[in-house]
């Protein structure tokens, strides 16, 4: 193990931070669906991949201006998320959580295959929304990373406020707690549920557009979703602040871990998650309550 200079450590920290923000964006999509419907979307990583590919289609293949292409991508993702819920996931309402696990796993497999058939199984490059680097003393950070940090901060706080104060936000929580009772209140459960999936797919799309330029677009890029899972779980699945905290924790510790244990590169996220779960089996901000008997 080599000793790290302070500057190197800061650099790693910043890299980790922006990586953590990307995990957070994926994790927010996961938690959002979970919070409102108690469904777990294992295909969230694939939603992100799809967002990146659609962006690639609009911006690179069709040559649209970046921001127009990005907007269209998000519109497409919203419609896609809405449709997936309305046409597929809804049929499983009330089935055990496990069934939805399997459904979304299958959806992920199918999505990867479809993307591969349409766009091919290679690696493709997607332009970044902003170029250049920001230099802060010894630390160099790309503007794209800064953007991902800002976007995450905005999205997370907006959602937090939405669930806390907006009527629809509270209704979404209500329907996750007791769907039948929400129906009895006249809450348009079906429309709200589909909207949640649309929102979640849009966040997946944003993550895809931000991650695409950094890692190249490929059918395999969705696997990063599992690290977002780890982050969301560290935070206590179902809490948006928890998901952000967990993902940042994982994002920031990961580069240090990789440098310290080069042979174990890539599994730091899971080991951290395991450690947290050992101490707090419900995550940092627990969302599970004891049932009254």
């Amino acid at each position, binding site marked *: 193990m080599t000793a790290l200079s302070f500057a190197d450590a800061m650099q790693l920290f910043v890299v980790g931070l922006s990586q953590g923000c990307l995990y957070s964006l994926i994790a927010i999509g996961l938690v959002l669906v979970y919070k409102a419907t108690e469904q*777990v979307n294992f295909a969230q990583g694939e939603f992100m991949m799809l967002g990146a590919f659609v962006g690639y289609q609009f911006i690179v293949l069709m040559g649209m201006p970046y921001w127009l292409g990005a907007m269209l991508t998000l519109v497409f993702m919203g419609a896609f998320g809405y449709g997936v819920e309305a046409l597929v996931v809804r049929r499983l309402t009330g089935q055990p959580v496990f069934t939805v696990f399997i459904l979304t796993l299958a959806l992920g497999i199918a999505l990867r295959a479809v993307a591969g058939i349409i766009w091919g199984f290679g690696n493709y490059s997607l332009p970044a929304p902003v170029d250049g680097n920001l230099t802060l003393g010894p630390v160099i950070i790309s503007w794209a990373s800064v953007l991902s940090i800002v976007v995450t901060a905005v999205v997370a706080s907006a959602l937090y406020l939405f669930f806390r104060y907006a009527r629809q936000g509270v209704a979404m929580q209500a329907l996750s707690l007791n*769907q039948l009772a929400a129906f009895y209140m006249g809450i348009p459960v079906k429309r709200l549920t589909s909207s949640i999936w649309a929102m979640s797919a849009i966040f997946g799309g944003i993550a895809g557009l931000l991650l695409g330029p950094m890692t190249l677009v490929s059918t395999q890029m969705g696997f990063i979703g599992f690290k977002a899972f780890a982050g969301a779980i560290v935070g206590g699945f179902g809490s948006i602040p928890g998901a952000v905290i967990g993902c940042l924790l994982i994002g920031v510790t990961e580069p240090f871990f990789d440098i310290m244990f080069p042979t174990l590169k890539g599994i730091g996220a899971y080991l951290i998650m395991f450690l947290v779960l050992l101490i707090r089996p419900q995550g940092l901000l627990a969302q599970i309550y004891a049932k009254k008997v």
Partner: protein
Amino acid sequence: MRVIFRKSYVQDIQLFRDRGQAFWYLLFAAIALAAPLFLDGYFLDELSFVFIYAIAGLGLMVLTGFSGQVSFGQAAFVAIGAYTHTILLTRYSVPWLLSLPIAALVAGLVGLAVGRICGKMHGLYLAIATLSIAIVTERLIGGAGDFTGGHRGLSVPEINILGLAIDESWKVYLLNFVIFVGCILIVRNLTRTRSGRAMIAIRDSEVSARALGTNVAFFKAYAFFISAVFAGLAGGLLAHAFFYITPETFGMGESIRLLLMIVVGGIGTIHGAVFGAFFIVLLPTVLSWVKIVLPSAVATSGGFDSLAFGLILLGFILFEPDGLYGRWTKIHHYFNVFPMYKKRSFQRQKTFLKTERLR
């Protein structure tokens, strides 16, 4: 429709429900034993894979179907079994008959430890924790360098039982079949005794399982142990079937495939594990036949197999959540009551979500 007349309590805990059932199962066993006489090597190899996957699936069935613990990490135990077995055979020249049980036991002990650690986790937490075990195991084996052959992998010697070389397809087939039948009997015995019931109790209500005297943590770990032993056993056999093993053979994807397998088969039943194994092993073969009639543009595209797999799974979950076995019982029921079949008796109703955050 056949009605069972019960004359003694023994009847309810016998291996077979009645004579008719015993007859059918024994007939199947006889046909399976005779299969090498009329099937060629390719199909025998395929069936060997079916049996091996069914063994791993039975283990997962005990864990997920009986004790209700969702595991995305079964392939880790398969890997541990496969590597332990291969290393014992090649490096330490342990006899095959000893090496395989040791491999299963090693996997089992690791499973026990995991079960002990994960005992407090539920649902999604457990799923992701076990998933990370699969990922970590793969990396550890890959990173262990020469001992495990690293990412280059290890070549697996031929099976040799007490000097008898199991070198032809039909021999391997029969060996796998015998072990497979043994495993089924063991799981069947588990379902009709105390430990099996304790697992079901934990699955359905931990609170009352505890109130009735079930040591929940113990039986959760025990379910992990049994499941990992089966996985380890399957791993040992799988190593021979593959001839050459690398850590990637047993990655996260394989774990998920195993889980999907028991879902397609029908979760919670022994039949389900077997049906699922047939499905997952024979699907590529069937798809390759289907491809012949498809336009070549579709058939040659790289994603066709996984797309078909994904869509078939989606279809199962949407239209037949009870899996192949569930479909089978419905068909069976249809013929049993033939003119009186009512669609109603299996009709699905509006269902509504209720939170599982309270337990």
